[in-house]
């Protein structure tokens, strides 16, 4: 689904954000990316999203080289308050990207409402984003990405600024939607959603991931990869109490702290 080979990026001011990143992500996989701050996680995502042309290396999504924003790709930005459009209602925020899908107005609204219901926001479709709490705004941003039904979903520290309870809810939401069961009846089957989740939270990376990729700092490169083989369904209390979970998070933690 996603192939990254020899990716490096140096900004105009000379700052080398990432160097020699190799990463392969299979269709339907959820890969967590962790690393110390300033390890180029966000640069990596921007390059995959086609928002930033890397200075070296190749990226291919679905077998096609990335040149501009790939189709069937959605992003949940870290800065949700600014990525939502304050002049549109919650429903219209979610429905706007669906214009691209060539759907009629009524269908767009219906799909938007369905996605909002999926994230538990049925009641606020007519409100404006700024009337909602931070956690709810972030759920709107997630609903927008889900309604778009992307093949590849990129999330840049999506739960960074919400409270602990909301954070756990959103993690579970992510696990439930990627299962595919909730994805509604799309006319064509694109298979499960592939998700790349950038986070600075080690527990989170293990809890939601199929695989954890650890980046080292400045310039960012892949330090190690760990496969997460925790039983499904995952549960905030049970899973986090498993000896394997504790062992994995210790391993990831060591990798992050000692490059």
């Amino acid at each position: 689904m996603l192939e990254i080979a020899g990716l490096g990026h140096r900004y105009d001011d000379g700052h080398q954000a990432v160097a020699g990143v190799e990463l392969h992500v299979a269709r339907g996989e959820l890969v967590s990316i962790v690393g110390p701050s300033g390890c180029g996680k966000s640069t990596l995502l921007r390059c995959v999203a086609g928002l930033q042309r890397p200075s070296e290396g190749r990226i291919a999504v679905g077998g096609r080289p990335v040149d501009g924003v790939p189709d069937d790709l959605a992003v949940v930005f870290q800065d949700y308050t600014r990525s939502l459009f304050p002049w549109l209602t919650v429903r219209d925020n979610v429905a706007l990207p669906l214009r691209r899908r060539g759907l009629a107005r009524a269908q767009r609204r219906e799909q938007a409402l369905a996605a909002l219901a999926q994230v538990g926001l049925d009641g606020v479709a007519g409100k404006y984003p700024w009337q909602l709490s931070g956690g709810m705004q972030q759920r709107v941003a997630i609903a927008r990405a889900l309604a778009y039904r992307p093949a590849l979903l990129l999330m840049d520290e999506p739960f960074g600024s919400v409270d602990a309870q909301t954070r756990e809810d959103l993690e579970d939401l992510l696990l439930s939607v990627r299962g595919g069961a909730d994805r509604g009846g799309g006319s064509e089957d694109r298979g499960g959603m592939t998700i790349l989740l950038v986070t600075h939270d080690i527990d989170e990376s293990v809890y939601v991931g199929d695989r954890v990729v650890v980046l080292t700092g400045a310039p960012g490169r892949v330090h190690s990869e760990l496969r997460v083989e925790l039983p499904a369904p995952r549960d905030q209390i049970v899973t986090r109490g498993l000896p394997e979970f504790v062992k994995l998070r210790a391993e990831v933690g060591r990798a992050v702290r000692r490059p």
Partner: protein
Amino acid sequence: MKRAERAERAGKMKHVALALLGRSWLLVLLVAAWELAARRAGDLYFPPPTRIVSAMRELWWSGPASRLWLSDRAVDDFVPSLSHLLLGWALAGIVGIAVGVVIGLSRIAYLVLDPVLQFGRAVPPPTLIPFFMVAFGLGTSMQLAAIVFGVVWPVLLNTADGVRAVEPVQLDSARVFGLGGFARLRYVVLPAAAPRIFAGLRVALGFALILMVIAELMGSGDGIGSRLNAAEREFRPDQLWAGIVLLGALGCVLNGLFLLVERKALAWHRGARRMST
């Protein structure tokens, strides 16, 4: 529920009435004082407000009730003035927004055009009226040209600023979700820049009134400004004052109407700002 709503509305109306009272008492007091002082002084150049109002009535409000009491002269004076004002303002708005968007979006257009724009903005608009009189003759084209040239700048520069200041994350979102050039402009760039565009349009509306009057005073056959010229020739201070009061009131009404539209269109902006503080 219904009752609560009605109570709330009644409360709101009471609030509005009190606010109006609170804001107008000083005006009433000043006008009364003016009336007394002017009567006592008996100066021809400073007629009391009642004389001014009666001059206004004589000039413009002596017509039939079916036409809202507007006299023929009122129609002759108001229609050209208002149509020039509004048409010129609208044209300047369209041109200003269009050029402002281009300059705001394109760094090259900005670099190339900025010196020209800075110069154009710096030229005091009334200085161009004699030129427009030579170029277009007296009449509608000259007046429109004067208004458009004078008021396009605040719209243009505000639009360019607003477009340049759109949140990069919002633009990234639009790109990621596949909004192409036109959709991005229509659904993201213009709404995001709308608060500044409206600010520019409001300044422009005030300028438009000024330029309308100047153009009419400097010579043209019709409009409120030419009525002022006539009153000067006939030595009628009361009519001159009538024109002054009328133009002041017109400015207030135009600004008030514009604010109503702006409040409605930018309700999201006020709400979002209130929330973020």
